[in-house]
């Protein structure tokens, strides 16, 4: 089960993932990111502080947006990942492909730098 909330702060769209993302729920993450990108946000921050678990289905969603985000010059930053969740990214070497920050402030700073 996953809940996804979106809120806007200083021109950035913050997508908060609450719960677990597996093959049954990854579609919800996909829809939320698609909406955020579709609404034209240039800074998208993904709040993972309440993300308890992610499987390859969820990782695949992030991967599938990498090129589109690059083409549209969207700064996309994940933050607040728990160690166990970060470990899943690290096993696959995805930590290098995605921008990952510690907290929200760092994420906002990184997004601002990326969108210059």
């Amino acid at each position: 089960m996953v809940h996804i909330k979106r809120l806007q702060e200083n021109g950035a769209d913050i997508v908060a993932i609450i719960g677990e993302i597996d093959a049954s729920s990854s579609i919800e993450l996909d829809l939320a990111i698609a909406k955020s990108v579709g609404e034209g946000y240039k800074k998208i921050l993904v709040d993972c502080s309440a993300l308890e678990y992610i499987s390859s289905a969820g990782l695949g969603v992030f991967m599938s947006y990498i090129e589109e985000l690059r083409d549209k010059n969207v700064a996309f930053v994940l933050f607040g990942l728990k160690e166990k969740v970060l470990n899943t990214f690290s096993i696959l070497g995805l930590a290098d492909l995605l921008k990952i920050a510690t907290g929200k402030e760092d994420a906002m700073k990184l997004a601002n730098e990326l969108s210059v």
Partner: protein
Amino acid sequence: MNYQYNIGCSLHNLKGVREFIRTSLQHYDISDLEMGAIVLAMDEMCSNLMIHAHHCNPDHVIQIRIVANDPHKFIFEIIDDGMMFDINDFSEPEIGNLVHEKRKGGLGIRLVKTIMDKIEYKKEGDKNVCRLFKTV
């Protein structure tokens, strides 16, 4: 000790798979990170099987067994009677290609192969038995 769990092939049951693994292994000396990785690998194996061999038909049942004869060596068995889906036959896609092709799949196999020590498939009677070995 052996532990056993039967589930229907609905992706909504993956949560149950994860809970079964965590509960069965909770009294063994396994770090949180290793536990997380094992749970992830079993989730990936079951979701692959549910999707590719059983088309998510909840009436199809797969059986999961954990054989723990040694407290540091575990064998995870997944038994079903669908089409055999041997992940050893699939080469892991390059991460760069996945990004380019916008593919949402293919990462799971890479995860399982990285996490588990060995993966074997056997036909036993009319059942497919997949055994995943992990030493912690």
